[in-house]
């Protein structure tokens, strides 16, 4: 789990500067969304965001469905005792808790390193936040 959740090394993800935005975009009445959406910085942000959340969603859904299907169709396997009266089913159930917490922790870490700085950069260059 942690292997997949490991974020990119800090150094490899410096915020990509926002290009293609005229000076008027910063001072116009509203931000120029069309320019932002096509900018390199925004494309990079979207890519970083989706590259993490889509595979991770697929992963936890698959792992949950595996567990559900085992519980429904392989109760014998789930009933195998590991130690004392603790069964495989119980351990797998608790592992669902563990994986949920691990994915949450992994995402928060990834977002802090790879997403938040990029968002801050785009907001700053769009004139929403002061530098």
């Amino acid at each position, binding site marked *: 789990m942690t292997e997949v959740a490991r974020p990119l090394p800090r150094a490899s993800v410096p915020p990509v500067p926002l290009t293609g935005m005229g000076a008027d975009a910063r001072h116009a009445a509203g931000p120029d969304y069309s320019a*932002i959406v096509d900018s390199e910085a925004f494309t990079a942000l979207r890519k970083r965001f989706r590259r993490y959340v889509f595979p991770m969603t697929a992963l936890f859904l698959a792992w949950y469905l595996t567990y559900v299907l085992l519980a*429904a169709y392989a109760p014998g396997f789930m009933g195998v005792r590991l130690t004392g009266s*603790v069964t495989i089913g119980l351990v797998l159930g608790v592992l669902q808790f563990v994986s949920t*917490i691990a994915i949450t922790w992994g995402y928060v870490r990834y977002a802090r390193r790879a997403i938040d700085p990029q968002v801050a950069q785009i907001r700053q260059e769009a004139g929403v936040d002061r530098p």
Partner: protein
Amino acid sequence: MIEAAQSTGNPVLNTAVFGLFVALTLFLVFKVSTRNSSTSDYYAAGGRFTGAQNGIALSGDFLSAASFLGIAGAIAVNGYDGFLYSIGFLVAWLVNLLLIAELVRNTGRFTMGDVISFRMRQRPVRAAAATSTLVISFFYMLAQMAGAGGLVALLLGVHGKGGQAIVIMIVGLVMIFYVLVGGMQGTTWVQIVKASMLIVCVVLMTVFLLGKFGFSISALLDGAAEHNPKGDKVLTPGALYGKNGISKLDFVSLSLALILGAAGLPHVLMRFYTVPNAGQARRSVVWAVGSMSVFYLATLVIGYGASALVGADVIANSTGKENSAAPLLAFEIGGPLLLGVVAAVAFATILAVVAGLTITASASFAHDVYANIIKKGNADAPSEVRVARLTAVVVGALSIIGGIMANGQNVAFLVALAFAFAASANLSTLLYSLFWKRFNTTGTLWAMYTGLGSCLLLVIFSPVVSGKSTSIFPAASFDIFPLSNPGIVSIPVSFIAGFLGTLLSKDQGDQARQKEMEVRSLTGIGA
């Protein structure tokens, strides 16, 4: 001992502890209710809550009486299969964390309708969003209020239907008062107080139980199996859903609805607007995941503990059936005082969850229907808040009437059904509108109405409504659809309908708004 707990415990003590909770929360509601005139204050508490506060409140919204009493009871009586609910409810939060919370916070202001109508034609999409919000909130609320009657009988010793109706009415009136005076700010504080009480309570019970079994999970499980007529079967899946192919498929269907429904529940979505930005929305989910992990693991111990110490037979034959597992266990280990606390927490749970649902329903009607459909976006804030308060009173009154009428009916399925509705109608439209450029108004309407409609139709023709001794109409039989939970059919149907509706329509959508939404959802620019 158990005889006493079964009938009443100590009604005076139970009422006193509950009264203390109401007094404390009323004090809080009054204290925070100074600013409630603007729409942002009333609907979203001005976005002033921190992620941690909102995370606890989120778990308060999510951990309904069905979670607390229902799951502990299901584990006590049916063993492992009760635990399966807990897992679905928890893992579901990853959908919120990864795909929904931050984007929804950035895109919308007050309601789910804000997000899905952002780049669509306002009126039809807002109408669809409001319909779905009201339907889901009403089903969810009915389940909470109907459970209140049984709880009254169990904990206050009120057995007559008339007496129970009066208690349901009092609970409903207190709830309406919270919403009217406190708005979202007050309602959130009620959730925070209630969720903290609930979690402290279950953690203390869990530590005590573990101590009693020498901190050996295995000993606890052996004890549970020994005092359950199902014996060792409570340690493996299947006691509840393992009967035949249909029941297994029903379980898979339920699991899908649970995991995909949480992110589409309107009252959960609305909570993300009570924090100032997407970062705090993320923190909200982190706190919610943390507190709910603790809660659901504790319920596992409490459920098996109740079976071991009270006995599954005693629980199944008591006044409140499965719902009485946690209260009976509390009486067994802590006497009337602990039972009083658990009883108060259970009542507080119903009160707080219904308050959260009421404010959601009233916000959706006032903001989506009144301000944006009837007034076409030109409503002034005071009149919009007035409409919201008025709607809250109407919704509250309906929930009281519904609760009294549904009292004693088998309505536990309504919670699972609300999740199926949310997963079918809301999740598909939310995900498409956040992630699929091409998605348009036709697709939105198709996905929503097909999801809602197929869910409703399948339930009407399911064994929940007719054909079984446990059905609403046991004498009739038009149960052509064999599953109790429609999720496995209605969720894919909604996704497919949204896809086809989009491609089959010539509507290319509003490109500028699409770009704005994309930027706004990811960066918060313009939010």
